[in-house]
């Protein structure tokens, strides 16, 4: 028994924040250089009353048509760090809002940039252990709500989005072997400190400066850029090689590498370390930015548009946690 990705849809909020828009606020900053190096021209952001679940519902609605019925879904995996409430589980609300069957499994899992690859592996496990036949994997993220208005770097990097992926039971198995990695000693390298159980949201929170003009408070998202870069550069190329061994492949046997679209500079740094040619290494975050757990499904859908024959694609996600995961999939059509 196998599992196959049969469809991906994504939804971006209507509001577009361009580099020109940001330039109005941060007039001294060279956004041309930013665009050239980081590869982002614009990103979509939610408005005040819009949540990750709102985006998720819109992405999911695009999945369903005459061939894919809501009544076929028997498991929902919802990946987000922007839950609707502390409790209940957002996946339960999604079940009701989409009017999915009531005899299905639904759960949230809290992961960031490694979330999509985790979700694929979990979906494969549910299908291969005969616990589900059609899994709806949803990633939905609105980091823009966490970022301080004067944090230029993070506002430039992150975008909001949701993606829905349908993973179906199939005769052939098109979801290969996955591997995982975790290093919680780096939990504070990318963090929103306040507002959870450990630290209350603080109305009088002190404004801090990164030292490069970017501001944040402990109520907001904080990213230690150098350390996150070092983690990625140090861990992910080696991890990718382990993934190749696990799947009995060499770099040349893989048709395309789709890594989490963190930023173009970092992606190219890893691509060169791994000696992968540009044509086999997907980089496109120009109009979406880093959408956390949504970058891989967005990239996969876009890349699949030119697929004519079955292709082996290696997916690698990495980031907040610190957490990383990846695996091999085969795709033979536009998703």
């Amino acid at each position, binding site marked *: 028994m196998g599992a196959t990705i049969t469809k991906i849809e994504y939804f971006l909020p209507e509001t577009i924040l361009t580099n020109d828009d940001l330039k109005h606020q941060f007039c001294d*900053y*060279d956004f041309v*250089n*930013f665009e050239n*190096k*980081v590869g982002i021209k614009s990103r979509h952001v939610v408005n005040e009353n819009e949540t990750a679940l709102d985006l998720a519902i819109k992405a999911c609605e695009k999945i369903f048509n005459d061939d894919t019925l809501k009544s076929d879904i028997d498991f929902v995996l919802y990946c987000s760090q922007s839950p609707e409430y502390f409790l209940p589980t957002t996946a339960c609300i999604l079940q009701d809002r989409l009017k999915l069957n009531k005899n299905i499994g639904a759960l949230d899992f809290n992961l960031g940039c490694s979330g999509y690859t985790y979700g694929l592996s979990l979906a494969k496990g549910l299908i291969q252990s005969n616990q589900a036949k059609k899994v709806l994997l949803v990633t939905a993220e609105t980091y823009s709500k966490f970022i301080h208005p004067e944090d230029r*770097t993070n506002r430039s990097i992150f975008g909001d989005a949701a993606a829905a992926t349908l993973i179906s039971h199939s005769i052939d198995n098109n979801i290969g072997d996955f591997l995982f990695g975790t290093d919680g000693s780096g939990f504070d390298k990318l963090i929103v400190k306040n507002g959870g159980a450990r630290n209350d949201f603080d109305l009088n929170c002190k404004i801090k400066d*990164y*030292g*490069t*003009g*970017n501001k944040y408070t402990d109520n907001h998202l904080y990213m*230690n*850029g*150098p*350390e996150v*870069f*070092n983690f990625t*550069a*140090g861990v992910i190329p080696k991890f990718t090689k382990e993934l190749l061994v696990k799947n009995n492949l060499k770099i040349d046997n893989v048709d395309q590498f789709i890594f989490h679209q963190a930023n173009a*500079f*970092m992606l190219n*740094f890893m691509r060169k370390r791994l000696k992968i040619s540009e044509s086999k290494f997907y980089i496109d975050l120009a109009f979406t930015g880093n959408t956390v757990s949504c970058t891989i499904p967005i990239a996969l859908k876009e890349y699949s548009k030119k697929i004519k024959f079955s292709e082996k694609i290696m997916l690698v996600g990495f980031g907040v946690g610190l957490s990383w995961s990846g695996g091999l999939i085969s795709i033979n059509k536009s998703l």
Partner: protein
Amino acid sequence: MKKQEFINKLKEELEVEIEVTIDTSIKDLDEWDSLGAMILIAFVSDSFGVTLSADDIKNISTFKSLIERIGLEKFE
């Protein structure tokens, strides 16, 4: 690598337009920002196999202090 060669190459990576010397403060350059920090870390890693931490980035001031952090023995 010679020190001056390193400074010239790094200047190119950071797309610094003004003339710099070993005593120029990196963080006072117009081009210095979080992106510059990432470029610097990547360049030093590729050129010397040395990983600059967030603390290193915080503590570095001039090109001279950067060269000392990388290790004088790595330069001709």
